[in-house]
C-alpha cells in the first residue's frame, strides 16, 4: 500500500539526511521506525507525506509514485495522515472543537458530518471531557489528545505518529498506547517513530532501525530487538523484557503480564509479596 523505494534526501547544505531508504508498510500492521535523535526519522516522515521531495528514489502509494502537485497530495493526505510530536505546533484554534474540525472543513464536509466525526474523534482520544476548555488551559497530555483527535477526524487509512509517547508520564503513555491499539484494531495502519524502546516493543509488530539516515536493520520486533549489537550501534537499547530473555534464558514475551504468568507456572511463585 505505502512504501519507499531507494529514497534519498539531501539537505540544502549538501548533508545526506536519508540514504537509499527502502521501507515497506505492508510488512506489519504497526510499523516502528526506531533510531537515535537526529537519525532521520522525522525527515523520513516528511518525505513520506510529500512535504519534502526526495532527491532520488520515491514514495509509492498503491504501487504508484506519489506526485508533487496539489491535487494529488490533497487526495493522498486524506489517506495518509500524520500526528507530530509537539501538540503546540499543530493546534491552530484555541477552541478544541474548531481545531479538530479544521481538516474536515478544509475538505468542505457538511457541518453535520463534521460534527459527527469530530465528536467521534474526541471520544476516541478521550478528549471529549475537556472539549469546552480553551486550549491554553490544557495540560501537555490533553493537548496531545486534541492533536491526535484532529488527525483521527480525517479518518485516513494510514496514520504516522512522530514520537507519540515523548514527554508523557506513565499513565498518559499507557492511555496513548491504548488509543493506538484501538486504532489498529479498527483496521488502521500505524507507523510510529520513536526512541522509546519499551513503547515500540509494546506497540509494534514490525520494526525498521534507522541510523545516520540509513536502514541498518529490519524485521519483526522479536527479531530486531534480540540483536543487541545492532541496537547499540544505532544508539538504542533493548526493551527490558528482551534483556531478561537474553540474560535469564527465558522465552521472549511481548508483554510483562504473559511473562509473569509464565514465571508463576514455571516456578510456582504466586508473586503475592506485599
Amino acid at each position, binding site marked *: 500500500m505505502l512504501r519507499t523505494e531507494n529514497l534519498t534526501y539531501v539537505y540544502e547544505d549538501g548533508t545526506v539526511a536519508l540514504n537509499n531508504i527502502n521501507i515497506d508498510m505492508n510488512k506489519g500492521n504497526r510499523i516502528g521506525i526506531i533510531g537515535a535523535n537526529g537519525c532521520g526519522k522525522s525527515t523520513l516522515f516528511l518525505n513520506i507525506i510529500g512535504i519534502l521531495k526526495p532527491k532520488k528514489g520515491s514514495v509509492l502509494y498503491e504501487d504508484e509514485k506519489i506526485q508533487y502537485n496539489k491535487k494529488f497530495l490533497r487526495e493522498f*493526505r486524506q489517506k495518509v495522515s500524520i500526528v*507530530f510530536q509537539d501538540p503546540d505546533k*499543530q493546534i491552530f*484554534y*484555541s477552541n478544541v472543537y474548531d481545531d479538530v*474540525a479544521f481538516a474536515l472543513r478544509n475538505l468542505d464536509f457538511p457541518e453535520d458530518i463534521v460534527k459527527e466525526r469530530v465528536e467521534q474523534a474526541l471520544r476516541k482520544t478521550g478528549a471529549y471531557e475537556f472539549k469546552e476548555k*480553551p486550549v491554553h488551559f490544557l495540560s501537555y497530555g490533553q493537548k496531545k489528545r486534541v492533536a491526535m483527535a484532529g488527525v483521527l477526524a480525517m479518518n485516513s487509512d494510514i496514520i504516522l505518529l512522530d514520537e507519540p509517547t515523548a514527554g508523557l508520564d506513565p499513565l498518559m503513555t499507557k492511555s496513548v498506547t491504548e488509543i493506538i491499539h484501538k486504532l489498529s484494531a479498527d483496521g488502521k495502519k500505524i507507523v510510529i517513530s520513536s526512541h522509546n524502546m519499551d513503547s515500540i516493543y509494546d506497540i509494534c509488530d514490525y520494526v525498521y532501525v534507522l541510523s545516520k539516515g540509513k536502514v541498518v536493520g529490519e524485521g519483526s520486533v522479536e527479531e530486531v530487538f534480540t540483536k543487541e549489537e545492532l541496537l547499540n550501534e544505532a544508539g538504542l537499547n533493548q526493551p527490558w523484557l528482551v534483556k531478561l530473555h537474553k540474560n535469564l534464558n527465558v522465552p521472549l514475551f511481548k508483554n510483562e503480564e504473559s511473562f509473569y504468568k509464565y514465571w508463576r507456572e514455571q516456578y510456582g511463585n504466586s508473586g503475592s509479596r506485599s
Partner: protein
Amino acid sequence: MRDYRFNLGIFLFLLLLTVGVAGIPLKKYIKLLCIPIAFLIISLITILISCSPKRELFLWALPLSKNYIGITREGIITCRHVFFRAMACVASTYFMALTIPMNQLIVVFKRFRLPKVFIELLILIYRFIFIFLEECKEIHTAQEMRFGYNNRKNSYKSLSLLIRSLFVRVMQKHEELIISLESKLYDGEFKM
C-alpha cells in the same frame, strides 16, 4: 451631562456582579484596577491644573511670573465626571473580559460581519499569544536564574536576547506550522 452618582452606581453594581456573582477574587480585581490607575491619576491632574493670567478663574492658585497656575471649579467637575465615567467603563470591560470566554467573544465578532481575514487573524493571534507568553516566561526565568536581570546593564542585554530568542522561535514555529497546515489540507482559509 449624567450625574456622576449614576456612574458610581454602575461601577459598584458591576464590581459586585463580577466579584460576588461571577466569583472573581477581589484581590485579582483590585490588581487589575491598579493597571490604568497611573494613567488616570496623571491625566486627571493634567486636566485639573490650569494656567491663566486671570486670577478670578481659580478656586486656588499660585502666581507664576505673570500667570497663575491652579485649580478651577470646572476642572474639578470635569475630573469628577471623567473619573467616575472611566471607572464605570472599566468595570463593564472587566466584567466582560473576566466572565465571557474569548472564544465566545470571537463568535460574537464574527456575527458583526467583520472581514473574514480579521476574524481569522483574531483566532490565530489569540492562540499564538499564549504559546509565546509561556515561552517568554520560561526564557525570562532561565535568564533570571543566571543573573540576567540583576542590574540595568544586564537587564538590557537579557531583554534583547529574550526578544531575539522569541523571534527565532517565531520563525521556527512558522516553518513547523506550515508543515502541519499542509498535512491538515489547509486551503487558504481558517474556517469556524
